[in-house]
């Protein structure tokens, strides 16, 4: 069931990606729906599931973006692992902790991408800091609104909120 919800979330993220690409071609420079999905999933604290979710969401994002294939998957996997790891130790619930996780995830995501692009392509990312700040703010705000709506109307908690026994 949790994977079904993740799949639906992924389709929504991809739809959002396509819609934004169609109407506002530069919108994804300010906002990343895949990070929201991955963080939301990883908030459950299941590290293994979070890694898989990060890989899948990242590969989908890679497939429909101009970056080298695997770049976003790599970055999102790192984010997913970090968020899930933290949530496996600290039970973070509520809009504000979710927002804080999103902020951290976006920053980590951008940093990883920045490093990989520099290493593999030997390219300098233009206006990296400004882009990261803007993307952090918008993604965080949008993610918190989504989280709030899910909590209010669907009484939804992050997927995998229930702790798994050791060894997943």
């Amino acid at each position, binding site marked *: 069931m949790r994977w079904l919800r993740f799949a639906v979330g992924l389709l929504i993220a991809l739809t959002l990606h396509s819609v934004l690409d169609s109407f506002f071609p530069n919108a994804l420079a300010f906002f990343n729906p895949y990070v929201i999905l991955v963080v939301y999933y990883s908030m459950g604290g299941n590290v*293994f599931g979070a*890694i898989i979710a990060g890989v899948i969401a990242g590969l*989908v994002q890679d497939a429909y973006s101009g970056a080298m*294939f695997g770049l976003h998957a*790599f970055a999102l996997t790192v984010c997913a692992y970090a968020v899930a790891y933290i949530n496996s*130790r600290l*039970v973070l619930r509520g809009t504000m902790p979710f927002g804080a996780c999103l902020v951290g995830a976006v920053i980590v995501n951008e940093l990883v991408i920045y490093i990989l692009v520099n290493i593999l392509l030997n390219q300098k990312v233009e206006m990296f800091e400004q882009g990261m700040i803007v993307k952090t703010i918008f993604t965080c705000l949008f993610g918190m609104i989504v989280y709030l709506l899910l909590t209010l109307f669907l009484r939804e908690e992050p997927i995998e909120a229930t702790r798994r026994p*050791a060894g997943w």
Partner: protein
Amino acid sequence: MAAPADVIPRRPTLLLIVVLGLLFVLMSLSTRTRYIGETRTMFERSVMILFAPVPKTVNWVGQSLSDAYHGYLDMRRSVNENLQLHREINQLTTENLRLRQSEGDLRRLRGLLGYSEQFAMPTTMADPVLLDTSSRFKSMILDRGSNSGIEVNDAVVNANGLIGRVVLTTKDMAKVQLITDGNSSAGVLVDRTRRQGVLRGDGAVGAQLYDIPSLSDVQPGDVIMTAGIDGIYPKGIPVGVVTKAEKGQDLFKTITVRPSVDFGSLEEVIILHTRKIPNAVVRYAP
């Protein structure tokens, strides 16, 4: 808030390292193929194919919405344009009618002007205000009179030919006796043979040509012109066309003439201020 140590998974860290390693290899491959011209690896292509319905659907929905919106806008624009074109058509039709009217007037007036210029005498333009062709006495009232210099016995013509002569004037009106009037007469000649005769109105729609000898060569279709011998009409004005020429019971032919002027469609006319023959001269005329 701290969770027990036994719930912290350890193997996922290993998984993370493996996954990241694989992704790094994938990225390297992607980078390498990118440089040799192939921008999509097989794996990337598979993911794209797997999720292709989503962007396609979004694109289809977006395109449909865009088409519907632009279709609606186009329809609104077309309706407005249609209304505007209808208005323009109405305006242009009205203007066209007016221009046609003006063109007809211009052609007619040019004809009149050219016609009047050939006479070396003063002329006055006038419009008929009343035309009486129903009775035997054929007459016409003009909107100009003695104030415009019109006098009795002035010839009245239009672009087609002779209409008649002025028989009565007031200050601002003049009465014209048409050549079809039973009491009118004019000295004329047959244009082809130059044979002279007298044209008298038949009181209907035509006129009779008298005093043409039986042996004279007059045929239907011959053009009749004024001869300039009656002291009223200048020479050379078209009067009509012979429609019937028969041998009469006496020495003269019976000739029927159809006037060149259509009295049913008279508009502007020209009054020729012909030079009057002094009474003293008339008195000694044969």
